[in-house]
């Protein structure tokens, strides 16, 4: 009994210590963002590897999620004779929830794990220590550009996901199941609110992008510099990102949509 309480205490203390180290790491990362101004090339390279290389997985997943939404939504809505509102249903679920959440989960799996592995390997092969000995701060040089790139990419990827998803819903709903094309788009236009739906979705995706990139970079920087340590850190990135994204999604949803 006592032992299990001790164990619980140890785990709690361990996770708070890690949170603390993570916060210090973040505070070191942020000043480095200013250094990017004279060297936009560093940021552009990272925007490519974090954002552009995630393009394919986001587009294809978005298309399929939208198609499934169209199919399932049609089945349920047609019971009430409300097929016309399919567009609203597809767009609202995508813009409010699925777009930010699913694209963030995919982002953590595609870009986050790659970031952790990259930085972890740089640590394991002494590249970070080497930079330090060359008087180059690895946080400023390596971490900060990746952080900003993640922060900028995520909202764009989420928007892309929602957009492709809406097209996917239209392909199935209008193209295959015969919902009226005009109704699909006009209902969507009438019911979706810019402030409530779109802005809130964008806020969510910014928060998720922040958290997922932070976790990925910190896990890589903090990993045990061996091949085993790197592989563990990569796993932790995906698991911790998924938890944080889903948990934060609930909190954000409660704050944004809780009162209506």
């Amino acid at each position, binding site marked *: 009994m006592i032992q299990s309480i001790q164990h619980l205490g140890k785990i709690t203390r361990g996770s708070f210590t890690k949170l603390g180290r993570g916060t210090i790491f973040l505070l070191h990362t942020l000043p480095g963002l200013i250094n990017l101004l004279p060297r936009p090339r560093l940021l552009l390279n990272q925007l490519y590897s974090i954002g552009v290389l995630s393009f394919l997985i986001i587009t294809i997943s978005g298309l399929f999620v939208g198609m499934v939404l169209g199919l399932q939504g049609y089945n349920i809505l047609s019971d009430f004779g409300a097929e016309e509102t399919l567009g609203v249903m597809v767009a609202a679920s995508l813009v409010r929830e699925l777009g930010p959440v699913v694209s963030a989960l995919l982002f953590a799996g595609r870009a986050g794990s790659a970031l952790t592995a990259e930085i972890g390997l740089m640590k394991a*092969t002494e590249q970070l*220590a*080497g930079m330090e000995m*060359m*008087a180059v*701060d690895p946080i400023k040089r390596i971490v900060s550009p990746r952080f900003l790139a993640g922060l900028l990419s995520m909202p764009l990827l989420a928007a892309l996901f929602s957009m492709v998803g809406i097209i996917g819903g239209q392909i199935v709903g209008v193209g295959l199941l015969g919902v009226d094309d005009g109704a699909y788009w006009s209902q969507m236009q009438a019911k979706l609110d810019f402030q409530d739906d779109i802005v809130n979705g964008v806020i969510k995706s910014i928060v998720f992008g922040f958290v997922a990139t932070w976790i990925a970079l910190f896990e890589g920087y903090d990993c045990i510099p061996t091949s085993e340590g790197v592989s563990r850190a990569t796993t932790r990135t995906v698991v911790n990102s998924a938890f944080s994204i889903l948990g934060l999604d609930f909190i954000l949803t409660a704050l944004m949509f809780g009162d209506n």
Partner: protein
Amino acid sequence: MDSRVPNQNSLVSVNNLSFSRGDKKIFDDISLEFERGKITAIMGPSGTGKTTLLKLIGGQLCPDQGSISVDGQNVHRLSRSNLYNLRKRIGMLFQSGALLTDMNVYDNVAFPLREHTHLPEPMIRTLVLMKLQAVGLRGARNLMPNELSGGMARRVALARAIALDPMMILYDEPFTGQDPISMGALTHLIKALNNTLGLTSIIVSHDVHETSAIADYIYVLSEGKIAGQGTPAEIQKSDSEWVQQFMTGAADGPVHFHYPAADYVDDLLSSTKSYGRVSKRYGRISR
């Protein structure tokens, strides 16, 4: 050793340094001097903290006690920006080379120049080609680090280490895992660079032969203490049994071949004894 007069000509002095990792004492109150313009070697078996010493000198680790000064500055009292300024004057060659894997050879050597200077690109090109020429790899400038052999990677890393014309280079196990030809090339390079560029070199190594060939002064470390020091010739003639064993590579000596264990014969017989005990016990039960 405490009565030693501080050497005016030393670039790096380590004073009464103690450092431990966990419960393990890695250095126990040691003092070393590294003279300007000389090649000083730190030797000792694996796990004696030779690399740790380089990290302490470079300010990547902090000592528990004692101080290290480089060119008159106490490394661990410096502010971050002053430490970085000091590091710009120190080159370090890592065991793995530590080349940046996403850049080719040219960009790796240009890296410190681009980070720390505002030189125009044509001048950087000239400097990079000069450094690469010095290590004999001007023709390999477009290769990526994964296309290089171990010895070539270390030579590129050496070119990068001298890119900012440092006053001192720290070598971490430069000879480990090299074939005889690259070993010869590296030995020659270290000596030549030290003499032509007027550097101070600190080599951490356990390759007795290569290191003795080029070092001006050698410290032999063992279990956190200095087991012997002197010029290579003095070390060869050292009357310390430990140093003798290390230099000649004898399998047994003060450092035993066998990990501490119970007496061999006893150990072998003890298995039969324990069977005996078991049978006795059974015997007792049956009785």
